[in-house]
C-alpha cells in the first residue's frame, strides 16, 4: 500500500493530492526562506491563523446566496482577504504603536482566530451537517477531496512557484541585506509586501492540505533545515524548496496509504525528521561535525602540550596526552620519549622560542597575532624569516 502510494498508484485523486502537495511544499519552502533570512519567520503564523474568519465569512455569503457553501475557490478567496486584513493590522500595530512585532503577531493571531471560532459556531447553528468540511481547514483534510479542489491546489502551488521565479533576485537581495537593497534603489517596503503576498498565497493554497495551524511549519522548517547545509543564499533557497517538496510528497503519499494518518501532521513530522537529521549530520553546522571538530582540537592541544613537556623533561601525568603520544609513536609505554618523539619535542620547543621572538617584534605584529599555541610557524613565515629568527635565538642563549 505504501509502495503504491509512493509511486502514485492509488488512483487519480491521491495522485493529484500528492502532486499538489509537492508543488505546495516546494513553493512554501522557497517562500519561507526569504521570511527566515529576513528573521520574520513567525509572521506566517499570524497570517495563517488570520485566514479562519475569511473562510467562515465566505461560507456564510455562499450560503446566503443560496449555494452549497463548499466552493473551495471562493473559500480561498475569502481566506486571502482576511489574511490580508490581518497582515495589515499587524503591520499597522508595529509601525504606529509601541508594540514589538512578536506582540503584534500574537495579538493578530489570537484575535482573528478567536473571531473565526465565533463564526464557526455561528455556522454550526445554521443547520446540521452544513459546516462539515470547514473543520478540515484547521488541520487539513485530503480525504474525500474533489477533483476540482485538487486542481485548485495544484494550480495555486504552480502559480506561486512562477511568481517566485520572477521575483527571486530582488527578494534575495532584500532578505539578505535590506540596506544594500535600498542603496541600489529597490523599494524595500514594496518587496516586503510582495514577500508577504507570496506567504499569504502559500498559506491559502495549503489550507486544505495541511490546515491553518500547521501550514506555518512548511514555511519555517525547510528553510531552517536548508540553512544547515550551505552558507550561500541562493543555494538555501533551492535546497529549502527541494526539502519542502520531498517532505510534502512523502507525507502525502504516507497519509494516503493508511487510514487515520492525517496529511498535515504527517507532512510536518516528515519535515521535522529531515530537520533533525540535518541538525545531527550536516557538515560544519551539524552537531556531529561540531563534536568531531572539538575532539580534533582537543587532541592537537594535548599532543602539543605533551611534546613541550617532553622537551623540558617534565613527567606527563595526563593519561589522554600519554595515549595520544604513544599512538603517534612518540613515547614508549613507560612514558620515555622515542627517537622520533625527542626530535618532535625539540622542534616544538624551538618553535615556541621562535614564536616568542616573533611576538616581541613589533614589525611582525600581523604574523604574531596568528599565534594560538598550535599553529606551525612554517605556515606563517618563509624559511628566510625563520632563519633570521634562529639567528636571534643563539646570542640570547649565550648571554645567559
Amino acid at each position, binding site marked *: 500500500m505504501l509502495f503504491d502510494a509512493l509511486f502514485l498508484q492509488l488512483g487519480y485523486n491521491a495522485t493529484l493530492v500528492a502532486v499538489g502537495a509537492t508543488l505546495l511544499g516546494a513553493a512554501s519552502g522557497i517562500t519561507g526562506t526569504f521570511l527566515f533570512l529576513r528573521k520574520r519567520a513567525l509572521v506566517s503564523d499570524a497570517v495563517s491563523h488570520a485566514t479562519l474568519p475569511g473562510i467562515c465569512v465566505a461560507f456564510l455569503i455562499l450560503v446566503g446566496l443560496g449555494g452549497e457553501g463548499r466552493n473551495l475557490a471562493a473559500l480561498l478567496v475569502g481566506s486571502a482577504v482576511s489574511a490580508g486584513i490581518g497582515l495589515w493590522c499587524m503591520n499597522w500595530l508595529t509601525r504606529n504603536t*509601541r508594540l514589538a512585532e512578536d506582540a503584534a503577531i500574537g495579538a493578530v493571531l*489570537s*484575535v482573528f482566530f478567536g*473571531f473565526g471560532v465565533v463564526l464557526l459556531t455561528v455556522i454550526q447553528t445554521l443547520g446540521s451537517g452544513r459546516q462539515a468540511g470547514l473543520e478540515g481547514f484547521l488541520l487539513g483534510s485530503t480525504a474525500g477531496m474533489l477533483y476540482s479542489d485538487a486542481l485548485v491546489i495544484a494550480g495555486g502551488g504552480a502559480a506561486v512557484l512562477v511568481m517566485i521565479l520572477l521575483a527571486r533576485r530582488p527578494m534575495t537581495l532584500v532578505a539578505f541585506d535590506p540596506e544594500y537593497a535600498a542603496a541600489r534603489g529597490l523599494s524595500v517596503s514594496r518587496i516586503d509586501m510582495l514577500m508577504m503576498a507570496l506567504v499569504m498565497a502559500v498559506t491559502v493554497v495549503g489550507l486544505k492540505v495541511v490546515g491553518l495551524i500547521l501550514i506555518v511549519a512548511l514555511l519555517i522548517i525547510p528553510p531552517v533545515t536548508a540553512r544547515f547545509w550551505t552558507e550561500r543564499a541562493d543555494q538555501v533557497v533551492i535546497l529549502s524548496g527541494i526539502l519542502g517538496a520531498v517532505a510534502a510528497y512523502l507525507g502525502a503519499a504516507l497519509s494516503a496509504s493508511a487510514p487515520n494518518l492525517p496529511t498535515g501532521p504527517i507532512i510536518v513530522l516528515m519535515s521535522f525528521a529531515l530537520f533533525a537529521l540535518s541538525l545531527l549530520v550536516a557538515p560544519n553546522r551539524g552537531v556531529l561535525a561540531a563534536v568531531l571538530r572539538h575532539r580534533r582540537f582537543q587532541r592537537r592541544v594535548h599532543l602539543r602540550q605533551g611534546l613541550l613537556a617532553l622537551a623540558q623533561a617534565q613527567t606527563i601525568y595526563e593519561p589522554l596526552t600519554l595515549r595520544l603520544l604513544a599512538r603517534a609513536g612518540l613515547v614508549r609505554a613507560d612514558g620515555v620519549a622515542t627517537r622520533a618523539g625527542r626530535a618532535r619535542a625539540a622542534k616544538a620547543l624551538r618553535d615556541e622560542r621562535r614564536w616568542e621572538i616573533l611576538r616581541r617584534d613589533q614589525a611582525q605584529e600581523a604574523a604574531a597575532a596568528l599565534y594560538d599555541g598550535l599553529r606551525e610557524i612554517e605556515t606563517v613565515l618563509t624559511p628566510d624569516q625563520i632563519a633570521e629568527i634562529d639567528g636571534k635565538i643563539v646570542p640570547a642563549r649565550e648571554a645567559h
Partner: protein
Amino acid sequence: MASEFVTLSLTPLLIGIFAAVACALPGNFLLLRKQALIGDAISHVALPGIVVAFLLTGAISTWPMMLGAAGAAIVAVVMIEGIRRLGRIEPGAAMGVVFTTLFAAGVLLLEQSDTSSVHLDVEHALYGNLESLIWLDGTGWDSLLDPQALAYLPVELPRMAATLVVVAAFIALFWRPLKIATFDEGFARTLGMRTEWLGLALVLMAALAAVAAFDAVGSIIVIAMFICPPAAARMMTNRLEVQVGWSVVFASVSAIVGYVLAGYGPMWVGMADAVSAAGMIATVSGVILAISALWGPCRRRAGAPSGV
C-alpha cells in the same frame, strides 16, 4: 433569574475571569521581554502532553493531564533552547520548528489512538468548553453558603483560583527583581541577580497559567490573554505598576463582556443558539486592544515624533 444565573453563568464567568487574569499577569512581563509568543508555543504543545497523559493513564483525569501538559511545556522550552544553541538558529524560527512539530505529533497520536469513547479532540483543546462548566447544585445565591452545594462546584473553579493565587503571589514576591531584570538585564546581573533563573521561573509560571487555563477554557483564550490585555495596557501608561493594573482590568472586562456577548448576544440579533464563549472573549480583548491602539495616551514609542 438569579438562580439561573448562579447555576449556568456564575462559575463559567468566574473561571473565565480567573483564567484571563492568571494569563495576563505574567503576560505583562513576557510582552516587555519580547517573549510574547512563548504563550502561543506553550498552548500548542500542551496538546501532545495531554494526549500522552491520556494514553498512559487511559482516562480523562485532571492531575495526569496537567502534569502531561506541564511536562510537554518543559520539553518544548528545552527543545527550543537546545535547537537555538546547537543549530545557531534565531529564537523565532526555533520556536516555530518546535511547537508545530509537537502539535503535529499530538494530532497524530490523537488520530491513531482510540479516543472516541472520551471527550478529547482537537477542537476541544483549541476552544475549550467554558459554557459546559455549570454548577448544577447552585440553585441560588444562598448556595454559596451551603457546603453541600459548594462541594459540587466544577473542579475547574477552585483549580483556576489556586493557579491565579500562585501566579499572583509569584509576581508580588519577585516584583522588584522581575521589574529590574525586565527593563535592564545587565544592571540586574551587576546587582547579583540570577536573571536566567528568574526568566525560567517566569516562563514556568506562564506555563502553569497556560496549562490550567487550557484545561478549562482552551488554548485560544490562553494566547489572547497572554498578549492582548498587556498590550492594550501598555498603550495606557508608562509605569509598570499601572500597566499591570490596567491589564487585570482589561482581562476581566474581556472575560465578562465576551461571555455575556457569546451567551446572550445571538439572542439579541434573533438567533437561537449561543456562540463560542472562548472565541468571543478573544475577540473582545482584540477590540479593547484596537481601541487602546487608536486612542491610548501612551500608544507611541517614546521619542517617536507625534502625528506621524
